[in-house]
């Protein structure tokens, strides 16, 4: 299969200048997912925190094209944090998750993406939802939680019990899975083969490509038919200023 002839994606090859909407449009969205309502030009993105829509970057475009070609993967919805309208805000706090912006970021970006596909939670059809995997890639992982834990241990201070489950990235995926009823495989991935010194924005794009490639393997192998693919990187400054997160919802052709 060659790009542009089948259920091939939707993601512009132009990295900085082409409006998202002018790329071949995202393939037939499930349940009328309003993917085209995503901000549609790079000027808007540059006025926000990303320098361009994250799914337009070279590693993501390449991963999507490869997945489309080898596994007939289609992108049905996409979302990110921050979007231009977020304007410096922090992701909404989530009860049960403390200390770090990592878990709220995962939940918020997943929510934005899944609402496009399913509307309100839970996902409508349990049979379909049983085939939806969730994959999260993060090179840095939950830096806020890891740092809080390391500092408490080094100081001989009491470790907050909530950090127990929060210390693993799978836990927040369990939150998303339970809220939306998504019962496919749950997979957390660490650093892709990145170099050092990338910005959270660059790293997030590489992580997204990594998770997307893993989702293609999972769907190609038959353990899931669709997947929520997430990439989350915290900024170096505590307080969420540099945080980046992206979500794609993808489906195989089966």
């Amino acid at each position, binding site marked *: 299969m060659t790009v542009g002839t089948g259920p091939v994606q939707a993601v512009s090859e132009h990295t900085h200048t082409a409006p998202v909407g002018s790329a071949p449009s995202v393939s037939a969205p499930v349940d009328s997912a309003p993917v085209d309502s995503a901000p549609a030009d790079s000027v808007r993105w540059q006025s926000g925190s990303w320098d361009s829509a994250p799914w337009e970057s070279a590693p993501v475009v390449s991963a999507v094209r490869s997945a489309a070609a080898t596994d007939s993967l289609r992108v049905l919805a996409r979302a990110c944090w921050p979007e231009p309208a977020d304007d410096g805000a922090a992701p909404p706090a989530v009860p*049960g998750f403390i200390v770090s912006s990592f878990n709220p970021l995962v939940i918020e970006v997943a929510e934005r993406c899944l609402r496009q596909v399913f509307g309100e939670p839970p996902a409508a059809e349990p049979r379909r*939802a*049983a085939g939806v*995997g*969730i994959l999260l890639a*993060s*090179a*840095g*992982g*939950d*830096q806020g939680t*890891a*740092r809080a*834990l*390391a500092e*408490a*241990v080094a100081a*001989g201070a*009491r*470790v*907050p*019990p909530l*950090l*127990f*489950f929060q*210390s*693993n*990235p*799978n*836990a*927040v*995926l*369990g*939150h998303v*899975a*339970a809220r*939306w*009823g*998504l*019962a*496919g*495989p*749950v*997979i*957390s*991935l*660490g*650093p*892709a*083969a990145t170099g*050092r010194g990338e910005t959270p924005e660059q790293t997030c794009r590489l992580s997204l490509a*990594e998770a997307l490639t*893993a989702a293609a*393997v*999972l769907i*190609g*192998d038959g*353990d899931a038919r669709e997947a929520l693919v997430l990439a989350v990187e915290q900024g170096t400054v505590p307080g969420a200023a540099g945080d980046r997160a992206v979500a794609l919802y993808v489906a195989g052709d089966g």
Partner: protein
Amino acid sequence: MADTDTRPQRGVGITGIGVVSGCGRGPEALFDAVLAGRPAFGPVTRFDVSRTGTGHAAQLPEVHGLASELVEVIGGALRRARLDRDAEPSGVVAQTPVLLAVHSDLRIADVTGQVAEGIAERFGSQPPCRVYTGACVASSTAVADGAAHIRAGRHERVVVAAGYLVEPDTFAVFDAGRALSRDGAARPFSKGRGGLLLGDAVAAVVLEAVGAARRRGVEPLARLSGWGGAGDAYHVCRPRPDGEGLARAIGMALRRAGAAPEEIAYVNANATGSPLADPAEAAALRRVFGDGVERLPVSSTKSVHGHALEASALLELIVTVLALNTGRLPVNAGFLEQDPECRLDLVLGEARAARPGYALSVNSAFGGANTALLVGAA
């Protein structure tokens, strides 16, 4: 088991294993301990545990850094697979991807970077191509992915490696979550169980297309006949009590192998000694095997080697391969008394002889992630 695979090129074999654990260095030390039901737990000496509710874990007495241990163990697995440089000078190893499972913490980038440098230097291999951080199913997920790559023809062989060495931060946070046993023993499926104990493990396996291995003149140690993964969609950290997610993962592994439940001769269980999770796992096994579960030998070897977090599933896969190959089933140690919610045919007291069939290794993690790996005779 007769070789009934009509697509020998795509059958997935296990051609190399390497392991160090709290039981000692090498597969033999591990398997001797689990067959004897001899727990490796002792007082933690590696760091101060005076502020925690327990002071026990399964530790190697002398341990190098995690990255260095990972490189050594990968080397051991490659040697057993006859893939070291002397045996395969043609760059085969250099083209073999490494899937690595390690804990997600502040050191992860350093550890993965050091492993990449170490294996490039020692074996001329590529850097780890993917890192798995999903707790107790991290390494079984990596195995499933590796198998999927081989089955799809993307690679002829993949190395899966995983490591966890008991260290202060995870010890403290598991203690804070009241997950650690307070009586110095892990008692999976037993009445009176009080939680898990952590243990060191660094492990590696070489997965290889059966046909490719045989073309090299190497007979696989075992076949990875099936694999599956499924979620609970239930809770952040609690397992679904009816075991439906884990049962689905097991069902996927059986279907992939074309195996019937009656053909399973042993289950290496995930059970950690957790009051909530052990009954959920027993419920999952009953969903799959029905009343037959009462005649299906089960043991959780975490009672001997401890819980090695991201490395646990790979450690337990190695135990499962050794059980299948030797026909001897490891002991579920630490058992006190039957829990009516965990009515299983546990291997208690001493090792048991296995009947012919497949062996299954199952794992579950936070987030409701479940995996199943099915091992068959080569």
